[in-house]
């Protein structure tokens, strides 16, 4: 994974302290309380590892940040500016340079790669027609340079359903890279990947940090998060139960805490 991201974010954006901050956020689906009173923030150039069991609310949290879901209550701030919830959307998040690589499928299976890279942010000409030639050109460049798909028979015209899990994840990450996010949200990006591909993702995250970007990294593999994160936030049943700098929590301590949480659930169900 190359480090071709521009080194400096735009000038006017240097002044903020937190790229994103959530204050007392609640999220309910019917009678299910997915998040309750969550405070969460990400510094300007910080990698935050978000950890929690299945159903802890991690994906819900990042869906709020990326504009897919609207919180039931609470406040969201982006670059220290309060966000109007009624106008916050995926598109708005993109405009604010927040990019998300979702855990669930985030590509259109039957669509060619060039459409997948640009959908929602199409390059259009003066009369509103999609500039197909340009989109394909950039897509092919990305495939060759950024993802290293050279010689695998994958082109801008390839259909997503022909790709492996790792290749799909690569496309989703390449999409986030191309749009030069200031905050990249990665929801379990390594789940479908082979070992050597996992290293690529980890070095991509580190590269993002050295490029001045921030990152939220959700991961089940505790060793991976612990390796790259600056700060660790542990969610449990919709609540933040721990928020520490990495130096304050060793991998062994983190592991035993997660096991304790998990067993706690077991007792609850028994």
């Amino acid at each position, binding site marked *: 994974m190359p480090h071709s991201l521009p080194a400096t974010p735009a000038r006017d954006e240097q002044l903020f302290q937190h790229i994103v901050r959530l204050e007392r956020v609640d999220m309910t689906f019917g009678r299910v309380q997915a998040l309750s009173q969550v405070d969460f923030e990400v510094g300007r150039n910080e990698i935050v590892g978000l950890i929690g069991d299945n159903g802890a609310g991690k994906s819900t949290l990042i869906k709020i940040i990326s504009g897919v879901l609207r919180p039931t209550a609470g406040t969201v701030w982006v670059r220290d500016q309060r966000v109007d919830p009624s106008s916050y959307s995926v598109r708005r998040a993109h405009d604010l340079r927040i990019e998300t690589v979702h855990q669930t*499928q985030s590509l259109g299976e039957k669509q060619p790669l060039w459409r997948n890279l640009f959908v929602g942010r199409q390059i259009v000409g003066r009369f509103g*027609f999609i500039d197909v030639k340009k989109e394909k050109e950039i897509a092919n460049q990305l495939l060759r340079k950024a993802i290293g798909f050279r010689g695998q028979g994958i082109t801008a015209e390839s259909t997503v359903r022909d790709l492996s899990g790792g290749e799909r994840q690569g496309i989703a990450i390449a999409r986030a890279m191309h749009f030069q996010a200031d905050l990249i949200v990665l929801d379990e990006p390594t789940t479908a990947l082979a070992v050597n591909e996992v290293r690529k993702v980890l070095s991509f995250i580190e590269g993002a940090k050295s490029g001045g970007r921030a990152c939220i990294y959700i991961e089940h593999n505790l060793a991976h998060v612990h390796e790259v994160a600056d700060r660790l936030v542990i969610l449990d049943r919709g609540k933040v139960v721990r928020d520490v700098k990495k130096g304050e929590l060793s991998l062994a301590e983190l592991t035993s805490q997660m096991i304790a949480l998990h067993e706690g659930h077991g007792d609850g169900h028994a």
Partner: protein
Amino acid sequence: MATRESLTARLLRIEGLPISTVLLLLVAVFMLVAPEVFLSYRIYMSFLANGAPLLVLAAGLTLLIAAGEIDLSFPSVVALSGWVLAYCIHQHEAPWLGLLLALLAGALVGFLNGVLVARVGIPSIIATLATQFLWGGITTVLSEGLSYSLSDIDELLVWKLLVGRIGPLPVQALWAVGLTAWLWLVLNRRRFGEHLLFIGDNAKVAEIVGVNTRREKTRAFVLMGVLGAFASVLLTLENQNFFNTQGAGYLLEVMAAVFIGGTSVFGGKASMVGTVAGSFIIVMVEAGIVATGVQGFWVRAVVGVVFLAAVVGHMLIEGPGKGITRVRLLRGKFGLNQGERS
């Protein structure tokens, strides 16, 4: 794996090529069997005149099916808008107002469909089945079950502009082809069309990438309503007559045209070129069978055979969902690339 694409793969990528070939083969067969009819231009002018409403409807429906939705209510739009136009001409001698109100009626029906499907969340097959009854019924009430004969409307400018003749060429064919070309652009080159494809592919993915699925779906239904109304205007003016069930025959034929053309019933994949070929196949089989001297009773059976053959053909070409694998397999089958099956 090879980096060069085989000829087969490249040919398969040309939109609607297989079904267009079928259409041309069909024309050739008809020319052989009934040369006196099919070697004269008049039969084609008749196809163009009568096929125009079908093509407009099928092109519109292609967009909706691309988005994974369906509209069963367009036959009632064909009836309702036809009545609105006929009423304005017949009772008030206001054809332009009639045209405007007819299109508006279509837009309203479409908007209601869009609200029911995209906002209320009723599956489109149910919502539009219900509105099909609703507007069909209302048309019967409004027209009191009567048909209107619109004699002398071929004197009107609106008639000449929409369904007149340039030499032997029916003007409605130009409208239909022009609209279809525009809809091809909408589907393949506009954000709206791309959004519909992603919605049909996977609505959750569409939302994740920032598509406003509810708004785009509603727009698609409104567009279908307006196109249904326009088809109705062409039909009513061409026939110089309105009757309150005038859309009923179109429902299955239009759907058949779209699916024969290779648009996926599962959404996310659509071929406007295929729809054009499918529409002409439907129109031509009907006239062709009769012209070849076979009893007219056979028409539907032959349409069924062509339909099935087309669907099976598309399945073979598309494969069970593995594009590259499919091409590899095809190459293997044609002996072009032995030992490379995956």
